[in-house]
């Protein structure tokens, strides 16, 4: 017994040593080849060979991002970028812990909802010089996304992509019910009327999916009703505003009338999975699912998307976009800033749009995304940018956002009215703001 672990340990060490050797070999050969290139082409600005660590959280986007990284490496032959995928559930903790401990990546994906503690701790590099040097005209980005990554007049990231929300529907279920497909003329009332017609509880078929979903759900209907999640001056919660409550009641009514599966059903089987299994006729969801639907045999032939139906005030969609940040404690700050800038550049935007995985952020590069999804009216998501409302964030977004699901649950299950639940959420949110 005592010998076995030793043997295993020994073989593991041997294995490690072997892989380490081969790793070294690889690096060595890479460095050799890059050296050769630099000496032959003499385009590199520096002779020093360096490695930059770059962290992302989406395995789906990894192949596309690798292409962007390859394009960067082709321009900077002395820089080797090592791309690392950290799963979403671990990503923000890992990033926060390693970045504050000085062992983090040089460059990483960032969201507006997460950036505040990094800015507060001065952990990020301003990219203004790198943006100027790269000659990027920032008027090409969706303007409402830029402030997410700006503080005190400096820019810490540019949006690399964006997503908006649309009304996805199952053409097959509409055809069977003899109802015309949703279009720009639809309003909240049209949604409810047709959801009723499309619901057939005996066949376990529902008109619409109404889960507790912030980005694809009430973050859209609240502004559509004329309400707000955070007050315009950013100091207090908007959930107790009567118009915001209307935006929440839109969903709870659909559940109460039985047009949507219950919250319990969504806890067991997530909404998008139920939608893709063909027993839900409509679902509000983002451009971020377009790629998944396109790659699914059933969804790609049965689904399409329409603009957001109009609420009492507007048909605004929420818009969010990811940024690339460089860390201040990077050993190579200049190169890290260059990489972070390139990853959000028009060139990177083109590569991403062409992949069909995400909508590249830069104007003029997005048609490629629409073209990559010929089976859907994907243009809807680009049109939604005009008048879009930016995803609500504050200094410590998770402190209140993490309570939304639990505090809104009683409104969905019918135990509380939307006004009661929203009032409690507003109180919790205002407490969180006070702690910021």
């Amino acid at each position, binding site marked *: 017994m*005592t010998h076995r672990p030793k043997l295993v340990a020994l073989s593991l060490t041997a294995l490690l040593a072997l892989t380490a050797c081969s790793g070294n070999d690889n690096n060595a050969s890479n460095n050799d080849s890059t050296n050769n290139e630099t000496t032959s082409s003499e385009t590199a600005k520096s002779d020093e060979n360096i490695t930059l660590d770059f962290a992302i959280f989406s395995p789906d986007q990894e192949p596309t991002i690798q292409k962007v990284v390859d394009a960067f490496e082709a321009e900077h032959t002395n820089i080797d970028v090592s791309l690392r995928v950290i799963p979403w559930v671990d990503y923000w*903790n890992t990033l*926060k*812990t390693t*970045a*504050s401990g000085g062992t983090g990546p040089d460059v990483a994906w960032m969201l507006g909802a997460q950036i505040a*503690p*990094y800015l*507060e*701790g*001065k*952990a990020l590099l301003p990219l203004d010089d790198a943006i100027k040097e790269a000659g990027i005209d920032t008027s090409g980005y969706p303007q409402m996304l830029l402030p997410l990554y700006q503080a005190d007049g400096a820019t810490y990231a540019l949006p690399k992509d964006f997503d908006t929300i649309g009304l996805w529907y199952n053409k097959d279920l509409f055809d069977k019910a003899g109802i015309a497909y949703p279009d720009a003329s639809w309003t909240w009332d049209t949604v409810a009327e047709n959801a009723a017609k499309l619901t057939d509880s005996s066949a*376990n078929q529902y008109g619409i999916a109404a*889960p*507790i979903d912030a980005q694809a759900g009430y973050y859209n209907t609240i502004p559509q009703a004329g309400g707000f999640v955070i007050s315009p001056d950013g100091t207090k919660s908007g959930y107790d505003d009567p118009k915001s409550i209307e935006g929440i009641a839109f969903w709870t009514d659909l559940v109460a009338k039985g047009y949507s*599966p*219950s*919250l*319990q*059903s*969504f*806890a*067991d*089987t*997530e909404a998008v999975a139920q939608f893709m299994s063909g027993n839900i006729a409509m679902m509000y969801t983002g451009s971020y699912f377009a790629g998944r639907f396109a790659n699914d045999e059933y969804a790609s032939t049965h689904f399409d998307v329409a603009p957001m139906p109009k609420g009492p005030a507007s048909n605004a969609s929420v818009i969010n976009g990811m940024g690339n940040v460089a860390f201040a404690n990077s050993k190579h700050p200049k190169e890290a800033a260059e990489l972070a800038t390139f990853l959000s550049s028009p060139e990177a935007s083109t590569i991403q749009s062409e992949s069909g995985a995400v909508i590249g952020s830069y104007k003029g590069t997005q048609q490629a995304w629409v073209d990559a999804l010929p089976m859907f009216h994907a243009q809807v998501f680009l049109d939604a940018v005009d008048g879009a409302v930016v995803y609500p964030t504050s200094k*410590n977004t*998770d*402190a209140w956002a*993490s309570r939304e*699901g*639990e505090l809104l*649950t009683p409104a*969905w*299950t019918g135990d509380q009215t939307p006004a009661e639940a929203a009032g409690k959420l507003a109180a919790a949110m205002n407490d969180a703001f006070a702690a910021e």
Partner: protein
Amino acid sequence: MNNHLETNAAMAQARVSTPEAAQRNRRPRRLGDGLWVVAIMALPVLGLIVFYLWPLVRTIILSFSDGSPFIGYHLSGFESWSKVLHDPTLFTSLRNTLVYAVIVLLGVPIAMLIAVLLHQKGLRFRGFYRVLYFLPVVTMPAAVAMVWRYIYNGDFGLLNTFLGWFGIEGRAWVADPHTALVAVAIVGIWTSLGTNLVILAAGLEAIPAEVLEAARLDGAGSGKLFTKVIAPLMSPSVFLLSILSVIGSLQVFDLIFVMLGRTNPALGNTRSIVYFFYEEAFVRSDRPAGAVIALITLIVTGILTLIQFRLQKRWVHYA
């Protein structure tokens, strides 16, 4: 306890690997022996300090601090303690955890029954059964939780399909606030059964055959044999199990995290104390509050273990 075992193992190994050690033991004690002891003890003690005591001290300091990961933390007082102690979630999650612990404790008598059945003379396929019961122990908790999620699914779960054959209407077991905690605890019992069985089987093996034979000669039937002889002789093993089971239950997290998901209407009735810790420390990034909850968990664990040690005098028989 682990450290204790490791120390023993390290000492045993040291004795075997150095032939002189055996000789030296016979000689009168000298300074060299003391050095050996220090050298051998140093590693586990160092491990204890680095991995247990120092983090504990840091956690206590953190619980009285304020700050953020990038700016750093500084001592500030009792704010986090007062915040957590005033949060009703603390008490609901403590209650949920204790209910869970009590339900999982029921796994001990179940394991006892199965252990005795498996111990029967002339049982065929004994090895097969043991593997069957031990399998969940060596399976990843996340994988176990995923499989049970499907079994419990309200719309097309295996359990509801099975109940449907008998005309019983099922429900969304892990999404229904009335059943979610029990549903998760049943999985907890199932996953702990294997470890319980191994410990109980060892206890059964250790009962001398002569004792059983003597009892039989005195006219004890199998019922009496169990209640008057086997059960009392097994009580130290059962006691060990109940301690381990309660400590393990107080730390339940992964099962709930994977089986429930984030927008589950049953979360309020199922959230365990460690789940609450996770939400505060990692979702809301309030590390000092997380430290407070961790310390409360430690205190509760200590109290419950102490109570069990007090109560053992009434029912545990050391042969």
